[in-house]
């Protein structure tokens, strides 16, 4: 069972409420044919209450990620409002390529950190740059993605 923002066990109702909020913020993406899945974290730490996965339309190879930027921003703000912060982002640039952990891009040095420390991002723009650079560093087409997975705690 996931924990809520007060570090207490999250009830099913609490989670359903959070899930509904997330889905509402991304409803236009679903209308556009994207598949959005919100579920409790399956990972080792139950401190991550929600995992949001956005996958492109079935049968398509990969899509431009730019149009979903504003939805990701909305999601980021929503979770911030709920006092949750982004903990981890994984991107699959194509459906056949390896999933890549998005690492924080330091624009002062032009380097990505070696650790999974996207949670240290100060604002959404830093997160977005890190995602964009991560895709750019993969062998697939720049700006294209197949699936993106965001974990909040």
């Amino acid at each position, binding site marked *: 069972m996931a924990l809520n923002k007060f570090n207490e066990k999250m009830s099913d109702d609490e989670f359903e409420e959070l899930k509904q909020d997330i889905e509402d913020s991304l409803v236009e993406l679903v209308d556009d044919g994207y598949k959005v899945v919100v579920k409790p974290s399956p990972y080792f730490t139950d401190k991550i209450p929600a995992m949001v996965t956005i996958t492109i339309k079935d049968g398509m190879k990969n899509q431009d990620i730019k149009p979903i930027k504003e939805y990701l921003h909305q999601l980021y703000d929503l979770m911030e409002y709920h006092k949750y912060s982004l903990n981890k982002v994984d991107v699959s640039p194509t459906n*056949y*390529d390896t999933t890549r952990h998005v690492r924080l891009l330091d624009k002062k040095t*032009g*380097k990505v950190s070696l650790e999974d420390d996207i949670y240290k991002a100060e604002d959404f723009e830093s997160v977005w740059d890190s995602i*964009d*650079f991560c895709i*750019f*560093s*993969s*062998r697939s087409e720049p700006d294209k993605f197949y699936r993106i997975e965001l974990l909040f705690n």
Partner: protein
Amino acid sequence: MKHISSFENHNESWRQAKAYLRIPNLIVDLALSKLLNYIPKLNFLYDSMAAKIDTGTSFNSGQGTEINCPIQEIKLEDIKDEKVRRSLKLSGLFKDWHIYKLDRVSHDGKTPIYISKDILKQGDKIHGERLPDNIDKNDPYVNGIIVPPEDYKKMTEFYVVAAKHSIEHDLMKDERNDRYETKKYKEYKEKVDKAIKSKYFMGRTSGGDFTPLFHNLIKNNYVDLVKQCLDAEIIPEKKRGMIVNKYDSDGNLDMGSYSNSKSSMDLVPSSIGEKPTYDVQQLLQKTLYELWLQKNNEK
């Protein structure tokens, strides 16, 4: 090139005596050893070990085993094993051999006797090959008399043909490596010059080496050549491809999910010997970042 010349002189003499030219001698040696009951190929054994040391051919014993106990030169007559004595006499070059007794005993209680054409002292490193004990299942005789198993234990010495691994050998190795590295770099430089003209950096390095040239430059930590290639590619997407595209072991661009294919970023070794690869890694990261900035600025 102080040491390399001596190496070449020695080594060339060894090479000129091609292995196959030694075959007749070895056959005669083997035949005579059966007739006269001596251990064949002693000279050959020493010479081949010395040549391996000179040419830097790897041994299982690595840089050699250090003689870590007092060592004393003894005379031929001091050797207890008659067959070994006879073998050294009949090797024809007895005057070249030095015989040493080590002041220690092995785990089976025997004293090592080193037979070498080198002058050895405590602290020297040697490569050695132990001569087979004269008593074995196929030849359980000493001086024509069968030796009962209980007498095996009475044999108190074992014999090792030893060749010295000196500091000069290490220097020779370093010089050889330097010379090899210089030659290798020059070859890669020529390939890069050609690649710059054709603007094709991801082609197979050679007929026998399927790895893309650019990948080999990274693997070898040739930061200047890597930079030359990157600078020469002016099309941003192609330059990005040089860094992020994956190639399989046949040097083909991998468009799928072949797990063993590698990109330039995957190939940067953590170090080559004591030489850090920090610069190559930095260069690739910096180039990729600049391309990313360029992409975003263009939009």
